[in-house]
Structures are given as structure tokens and as C-alpha cells.
């Protein structure tokens, strides 16, 4: 800037140059502004989180290994349907019911929908977990985060009244639904849940409930 270019007298004695008491910092500030903007835009502040999921092992040789048996009375089938809706029915469908399929109920992903339905069925376990958390939060029980988690895990393993949830997905569901339902399982503290393939009759049940014209009844899988 102007004041830096000071007229120097040619010739004469070399005097100690007198500097202005302040340096012009404008270019430096300009540069810093640019750098800050750059870093702010390229920094990923919140690291994404992960949700762990274990799928059931695939039975590759059905002669050697039999599918695990679970009691039908505790089973809850949840089918992710089209348009962000969930269809569910309790128990299992027996082969003799194939001509007369049981109706499915429809809920959505709101807290009053699926969450209420799951909490209703998982009340005793959810209450235990909530009490346990409450004790830790209020300071009645002083334990570390790790033992809190393993305590909750133990409560879940010991539980024998809550539902066994089988999650299935109709082909028109999306990935967001899948994550949401697994998330609901964690929120509601469901001890036993897994993701399985949808059966052909379940596709039909969803189609009937959602009013989708059903594909011709060939041997679909």
C-alpha cells in the first residue's frame, strides 16, 4: 500500500530505515479468510455412525443343517411394504392356510405406529431396560458404560417373553425402511430379531393389503 513506498533519497548517507509502526496485514487476512473458508467447507465435522447387524447364517446345504425352529406364539412377522408402510402379522402361516391367507395389519414408521406396537409386545423387557437405565442415570447404580451395555445385553438374553421379530422386505421397500426398522428394534429393546427372506405367500398378503395387482400366481420365490 501507499505508505510502504516511501520516497528514498538517492545517494546520501544510509540511515536506519524508519518503519511505520504497523505492518499492513490485509493480504495476510485475505489469505487466512480463504483458507478458513476452504477448511470449513471440506471438513467433515460429524463422523457418520454405524449400526451393527448380524444376519442369520445362510443354510447352504439343507440336508446337513436344519433351519432353527422358533415358537409360533412369540413370532411377529414384520414386512416392509411399499410407500414407507409396514405390514405385520403374528404367528406363522401354515401350508393349509395358503388358499385363505390371514389378514395383515398396517402401521407406519411414526412413534405412534410401529414403536407403540412393538413396545406393547415387548413391555416387560423394555421396562426392565428402562429401569436399569434410570438407575444408572439417577446415580443409584454406579457402573461403567461397558458394564451398562453388557447388563442390557444380559437382560435381553434372559428375556423369554418378548417377541421374536422376523423382518422381511417386499420388493418395493427401500433401504431407508430397512435401517429404520432395525433402528426401531434397538429403540424398543427387542431382544431377538432377524432379517429373513420374504415368502411368496407374504408377498401376496402385502399385495392384497396394499391393493397392488398381484403378479400371476406362478411358483415365485
Amino acid at each position, binding site marked *: 500500500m501507499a505508505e510502504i513506498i516511501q520516497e528514498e533519497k538517492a545517494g546520501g548517507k544510509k540511515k536506519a530505515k524508519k518503519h511505520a509502526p*504497523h505492518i499492513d*496485514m*490485509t493480504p*495476510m*487476512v485475505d489469505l*487466512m*479468510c480463504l*483458507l*478458513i473458508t476452504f*477448511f*470449513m467447507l*471440506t*471438513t*467433515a465435522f*460429524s*463422523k*457418520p*455412525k*454405524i*449400526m*451393527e*447387524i*448380524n*444376519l*442369520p*447364517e*445362510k443354510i447352504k446345504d439343507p440336508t446337513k443343517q436344519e433351519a432353527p425352529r422358533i415358537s409360533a406364539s412369540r413370532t411377529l412377522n414384520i414386512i*416392509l411394504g411399499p410407500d414407507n408402510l409396514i405390514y405385520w402379522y403374528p404367528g406363522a402361516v401354515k401350508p393349509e392356510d395358503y388358499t385363505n391367507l390371514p389378514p395383515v395389519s398396517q402401521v407406519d414408521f411414526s*412413534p405412534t405406529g410401529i*414403536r*407403540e406396537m412393538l*413396545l406393547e409386545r415387548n*413391555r416387560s423387557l*423394555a*421396562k426392565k431396560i*428402562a429401569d436399569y437405565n*434410570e438407575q444408572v442415570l439417577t446415580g443409584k447404580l454406579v457402573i461403567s458404560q461397558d458394564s451398562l451395555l453388557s447388563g442390557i445385553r444380559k437382560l435381553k438374553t434372559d428375556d423369554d417373553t418378548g417377541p421374536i421379530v422376523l423382518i422381511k*422386505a*417386499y*420388493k*418395493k*421397500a*427401500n*433401504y*431407508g*425402511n*430397512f*435401517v*429404520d426398522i*432395525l*433402528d426401531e428394534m*434397538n*429403540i*424398543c429393546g427387542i431382544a431377538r430379531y432377524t*432379517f429373513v427372506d420374504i415368502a411368496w405367500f407374504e408377498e401376496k398378503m402385502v399385495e392384497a393389503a396394499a391393493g397392488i395387482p398381484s403378479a400371476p400366481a406362478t411358483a415365485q420365490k
Partner: protein
Amino acid sequence: MPKIKLPTKSPHIDMTPMVDLFSVVLTFLMLTATMRQQEPAPVDTPYSISEKPTPDFNTLTLILSNDDRVFLNFDNGPDTAFKFRPKILAEMGKRYNIEFTETELRGFEKYPASMGVPILKMKEFLAAKDAKEMSSFQTGIPVDSTDNQLALWILFARQVNPNIQACIKGDTKTGFPIVKKVLDIMADKNVYKFNLITNLEAAKINLAEIQK
């Protein structure tokens, strides 16, 4: 009326405090910066209550975009001493009878983001000059049963690095058939444990509701 005389001020503002502050902010940002990776496809991850952070290394990330393309990324975090990216590519090349040169392998190692390139196009992809040309090759990794390159990538990744963890990063709107196909391929390769990458959201359950 007498004029009010304003004291003559120098036109300079003292910028020192501002510069001080800027330096602090800049230093902070530079030290905490983890560069956001440029993804070949925009992915809008779903929300969950999970609070576990994403692992920093030994990850195999599958990205499912909402136009049904599948991308892969092998990440070893900041420590790249154990260079497994070029090893995996070399294995892939062996399978498809493609000889990758040293420069190509290094290019693949350096390529920072996820890739969704069919192996037959890999040479052209690595030779591409700019990002625009590169992205034209990102058609997604073939997952059909006739040409299941994703399965091979997973197989070799696990051979080269047995500790690799599978992460799935999907767009909320990704249709389920492609998700299912990918999960099936993983299950075929005996991968049953997944990390689904999500964003954090708070969820409240009404305690009174449970206590009823």
C-alpha cells in the same frame, strides 16, 4: 453554531485481534480436518440412534446409490503402510487376465474415493486424466449372477486382509432388490456381520408409556 469537531482518526483499523482469532480458528480447522471424500454418487444416509463411530481402518465400504449402482471402497485409514488396495487390484487382474502396470496399481492406491468401475474398464479409468472423465466410467460394479465382480472383489479383499470389516452405506431411497442382492452376495462369501452407516438422530420413548 459551532461545528462539532470529530477527532481525526487514522484510516487504519487495528486488525491484530482479528488476525489472532483467525489464526486460532485456522489452526483448529487444520488440525481437526479429516477431508471429506468426494463420492462418485451422492448418498443420503438414513438416520438411526446408534452412537458408534465408523471404524477408521480395515473397512470395506459398499455404497449403494439410489440409481442402483454399487460402489466399493477399501480404506486403511491414515496408515497406508499395509498397502492392500493395489494387492486387491492385482488379484482381480489375475482373475480377469489383465496385467496392471506398476503405475496403474499406484494410481489405484492413490485414488481417494470409492469406485464403481467394471474391471474391464479399469485400465481406461486409471488412465483417465480428470475427474470428469473418471466419473464417466463409474457405472457401478456388476453384480449380476453372470458377471459377479462384486463377489470377487469381496473375496480378494478378504483374502488380502482377513480383518476387513464390511460397511454398507446406502441411500435412503435405494430400492430394496439391489440391497438384497448385495446382502446375498455377502452371505455367499460368509460375511454376516455388517456395519450400516447412518447419521445420528435422537429418539425418545415415553417411559410412562412403558410403565402402563
